[in-house]
């Protein structure tokens, strides 16, 4: 049964581009070079390109599923697996969404603590962030898609500053020799890269809110294309400015790249970077929490606004346990593995299972 959303709650198809772009370019882009470079080193950009390609295929599968069922994740789950199993799988997905929110929240808090205010406690930063987050989530998807558009605009000048490191001391020889790593290494890097793309499964919740248009699919694909491009270019810049040996030792390569930007009135440009990055992680936080709460609401018909408050409180408390770099790294590893499983395991499974079910049902209908 198709899921109908009143038109005054819907957003245009182009908003999907900004929503999906923002959820891919979030906290990960500040630090992904190190983990991706661990295995494939100078060839990491190939892994990133392949990862982007694989994500395009997964996204196409998701769009096919959504187009067929004309609903969201809950519609798909219940019509494929029935009520009980479907609910169980959706609950798993809710934990997945909220896990992403936890990753984003904790990573940003730790960045603020390390780079700007070592004396500020987790609670102060997290509470402030979540209050701002709540004000957008309570406005529904329309206001979240608004902040997605704004943060795309705010963050784009930051990428222009990345010309500075190339100009001052980028050595493109660091990319050579090309293809010098084994497919295994490339695969491990691709696995690490998947963490940055895992957010796109939010489309399972967002889709019914997008106005019907032929362009929905292409806007979604464009967003993956743009973020893959960005990740690839930034990776190449990082390898050329540092080298793969030094990259191993740098925890936030993108921020260290900003260190070279030296303006007469501003000694440390990365402070501007961190501050503007608040607007980049905000859509991530909002979308994942919104997605989680929306799924709960659809299943159990609970007031979403109150639900969000409960979720925020839970996130705040859970997050305080991960407030140290070692644990955070462990958590990110786990999240990365889970994201990989969902993105390249579960979603393709869902798609092929749906194909089989469709065929079987057609067969039964004929007979």
């Amino acid at each position: 049964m198709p899921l109908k959303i009143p038109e005054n709650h819907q957003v245009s198809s182009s908003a999907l581009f900004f929503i999906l772009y923002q959820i891919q370019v979030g906290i990960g882009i500040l630090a992904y070079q190190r983990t991706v470079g661990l295995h494939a080193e100078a060839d990491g950009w190939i892994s990133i390109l392949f990862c982007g390609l694989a994500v395009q295929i997964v996204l196409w599968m998701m769009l096919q599923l959504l187009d067929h069922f004309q609903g969201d994740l809950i519609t798909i789950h219940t019509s494929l697996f029935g009520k009980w199993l479907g609910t169980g799988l959706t609950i798993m997905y809710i934990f997945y969404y909220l896990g992403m929110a936890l990753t984003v929240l904790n990573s940003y808090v730790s960045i603020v603590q390390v780079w700007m205010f070592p004396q500020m406690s987790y609670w102060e930063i997290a509470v402030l962030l979540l209050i701002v987050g709540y004000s957008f989530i309570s406005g529904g998807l329309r206001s979240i898609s608004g902040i997605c558009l704004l943060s795309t605009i705010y963050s784009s000048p930051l990428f222009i500053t990345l010309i500075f490191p190339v100009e001052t001391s980028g050595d493109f020889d660091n990319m050579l020799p090309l293809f010098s790593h084994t497919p295994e290494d490339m695969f491990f890097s691709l696995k690490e890269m998947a963490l940055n793309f895992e957010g796109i499964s939010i489309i399972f919740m967002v889709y019914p809110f997008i106005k019907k248009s032929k362009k929905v699919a292409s806007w979604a694909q464009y967003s993956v294309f743009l973020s893959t491009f960005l990740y690839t270019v930034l990776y190449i810049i990082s390898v050329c400015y540092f080298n793969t040996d030094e990259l191993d030792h740098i925890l936030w390569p993108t921020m260290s790249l900003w260190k070279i930007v030296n303006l007469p009135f501003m000694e440390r440009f990365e402070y501007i970077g961190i501050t503007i990055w608040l607007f980049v992680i905000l859509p991530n936080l909002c979308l994942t929490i919104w997605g989680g709460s929306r799924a709960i609401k659809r299943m159990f018909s609970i007031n979403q606004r109150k639900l969000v408050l409960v979720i925020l409180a839970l996130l705040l408390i859970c997050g305080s346990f991960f407030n140290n770099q070692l644990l955070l790294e462990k958590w990110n590893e786990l999240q990365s593995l889970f994201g990989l499983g969902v993105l390249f395991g579960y979603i393709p499974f869902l798609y092929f299972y749906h194909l089989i079910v469709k065929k079987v049902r057609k067969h039964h209908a004929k007979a």
Partner: protein
Amino acid sequence: MLKRSKPILYILCITLLMFSLSGCVRTRVIDDIHLAQIVGYDTVPNDDDSVLGTISVPIYTQSGGSGVLQPQSDNMSVIAHRGSQIRSNLESVSEYPLEVGKLMTILFSKDIAEKGLYTYIDFYKRNPDVGRGIVLAVSDGSAGDIINGQYKTNRLVSEYIMNLVNNNSRNNSPKTNLHYFLYSYYNAGMDPFLPIIKKEEDDLKIEGIALFKKDRYVDMIPYSQAFLFKMLYQSFAGGNFSVPIKDKYVSISSISSRVSYRFKKLKGGNQEITIKIKQKGFLRETERKLEGTTTIPYIQKAMEKYLTKNANTMVKHLQELNVDSLGLGDHIRSNDRGWNAEKWNEVYPHLNIKVNIDVELKQTGITD
């Protein structure tokens, strides 16, 4: 669907939070902190375990009437058991809290550099307040003496050294700073280098290029050879050098210098690298007469011969010291898939290195 919540409640919450949060982080008002601009490290005589750290902090006083006041500086020195203790010990002699956000220069005395710089640099690479563009230099003699010295220039010594090093990196010496040091320190096929600074009466002077094996000082290249080193190390534009031709000096301004590295595997497993340099310049000054047009090719030939000979000696010397300051390992790595980082230290001294210099004089100025 979600409803808009009461705005008044929000504003109340946020205002409350703002008030409660404002006291959480230690404020750092510019008038109430000391911004260290230069740090120097020296050894302590007869005490191998201790380090003498010296810093200089600018003090800005308000000018009463017209005219610009000379900047003043407050210098402090402490002896610490280890480099890592210096920071905490310095606090004991400083009237305001010390910050490193405006640090420009770090000096290491030669004795310190011989023991290895990594333990000292660790603090600066770890600290988010320190930029990657700060100048590192080795001092011939005591670093503290250089910091405490009085010079003819109006500037503070921190700025003086930074300008001195940066100006030279635009001309005859290759560019160095914290970024380049870390870049080549971590790179398996590269060794870092830094400028050497010496105090001469009331001036400072760049004495040459300090060569490092990873973080340990090994030897230096005198300033007269720095230009040649830069030619071998990178492509660049600018700089001056002079070459003796039969006891008469000819001085050349460089327009552009292009270097390329050709890598070849010889039979029997040996490796050969050819450093090819194309130097374009114009004649700046000569002690000998230029007679007709025939002498230009002659000067070019003589220069090529002289530079090639010197370059070969320099490369041989680097190989004998087993320091890969030119980053040849990194160049081979980008050409050869079989490059082995672990074996590089053993391969490098026996590498067959050829230097091929081509000089072209574009013009001779406005007289012949």
